């Protein structure tokens, strides 16, 4: 049986209550919006790219504890990384929360490993990945809002 505490770890609850980098980025040169129509989650991710490097990143919006904490911790983990590094972390994170990548490398994840409990709650995978899909769209410079549906 899945344990609630595996999902709602202290660090996740803490980030959901006090999200980091929660602001509009005035000098952003990329941004994207993401929706989860199922639960009404809606985030905007702002990026300031300098060449290949993510110089600054922030987000705003509303959502459940999982989606908000995921967005908050994502901004911390990709800040200062290259675009390719950020995409690699996303792939590993996606493997972690879907439970698809038990043997794969997850060494880049660091603190993001607290989201491993999400894999026991399949309907919450979309919550955990919404900000990441939005980041991906922002990196690609897509103009259309991404949706998890």
């Amino acid at each position: 049986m899945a344990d609630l505490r595996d999902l709602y770890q202290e660090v996740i609850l803490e980030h959901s209550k006090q999200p980091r980098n929660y602001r509009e980025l005035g000098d952003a040169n990329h941004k994207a919006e993401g929706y989860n129509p199922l639960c009404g989650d809606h985030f905007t991710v702002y990026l300031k790219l300098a060449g290949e490097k993510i110089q600054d990143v922030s987000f705003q919006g509303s959502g459940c504890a999982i989606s908000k904490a995921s967005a908050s911790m994502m901004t911390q983990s990709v800040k200062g990384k290259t675009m390719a590094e950020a995409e690699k972390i996303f792939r590993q994170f996606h493997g972690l929360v879907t439970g698809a990548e038990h043997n794969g490398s997850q060494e880049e994840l660091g603190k993001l490993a607290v989201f491993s409990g999400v894999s026991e709650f399949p309907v919450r995978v979309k919550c955990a990945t919404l900000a990441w899909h939005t980041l991906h769209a922002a990196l690609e410079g897509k103009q259309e809002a991404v949706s998890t549906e």
Partner: protein
Amino acid sequence: MTTAPNTYTDLRPSGPAPTDAGYDVRRVRRDFPILAQKIHGKPLVYLDNAATTQKPQQVLDAIARYYSEDNANVHRGVHLLSERATEAYERARTIAQNFLNAARPEEIIFVRGTTEAINLVAQTYGRRNLAAGDEIIITAMEHHSNIVPWQMLCEEKGARLRVVPINDRGELQLEEYEKLLGPKTKLVAMGHVSNALGTINPVRRIIELAHQQGVPVLVDGAQAAPRMKVDVRELDADFYAFSGHKIYGPTGIGVLYGKASLLEAMPPYQGGGDMISSVTFEKTLYNKLPHKFEAGTPHMEGAIGLGAALDYVNRLGMENITAHEQDVLAYATEKVAALPGVRLIGTARQKTGVLSFVLEPIHPHDIGTILDQEGIAIRTGHHCAQPVMLRFGVPATARASFGLYNTREDVDALVRGLNRVREVFA
């Protein structure tokens, strides 16, 4: 001589129906095998009845008996099985007719559900009768299924959708409705009960006002039919739609009631078998009502299951069901509203069945996951009524909705679950 077709609805494994003297919810619950199970190790508390209801054994048995003993295609075979299947299917129509107190069985069209019923009217009555500049009136509390078909029609015709606003309790602003009604109005389409708020709309008055202007009214009865007595003649409704799966019957079947005079004048919805009386490559003559609107082999199992569900509801007595659900709703409203941080969404003076709320600052989706771990099934999200969410300034709500088998103990479990939610987020 033909053998009389089976009666699908006379099985009551759990004994006789409760008498008028009292509504025995314990015995009622025994009719629903799904309720006996555990979810995540806890007894199931099913509070998502506005989304879909569970099915009593009587409905399951009716479907199994139909397939075990009588299955054949309807309306065309000369053989006995086809005759039995046809009789069973048409008997279900008569049960639905009596349930709505319609004047004639052919005013009952079997459709997939409320959504298809509304689309049928939009695509037949609507396309024939609307022109550029005309208006359709809906309300701010409609389910998407009573918004989008009219938007599509308006887009095609250059017509305009007008929306009656609601107040902070989630009640219709009738005076605004009266202002919107006018010479351009060609149709009013309105929910009888709001799925997101539980508001019971004064449809009788709404219809009366529309008829004074010669405007027909479609009533979306998806949430009302399972919870209160509906009499289409007393309401003088022109169209009335409901879904089988929300009234303890199968999915994929529903009813569109229409006044015969309107249905007769409408073009068919879909073409195919059963809806014709003769076909040549030069000219096809359409079948009479109700078959004109039922192209193709119908959902026979569904209709028979729906008939069994309506028989079941009739046997319990709609007045008893309404009184029971009102008691559970009143108890739930008091208990849930007393919890710190709770804000009820939808506090109409006339409401039924639905308790929508937010528990600030916790997101409804988190509430839903934690309650599920306690065995409690509720709905979280926008309930296919995004304009309602916008009206109340919330992205989503948590919604507990009650059925004829829910108890005050279910409400107590919900309250314990919500306290658990508050602990996790403390």
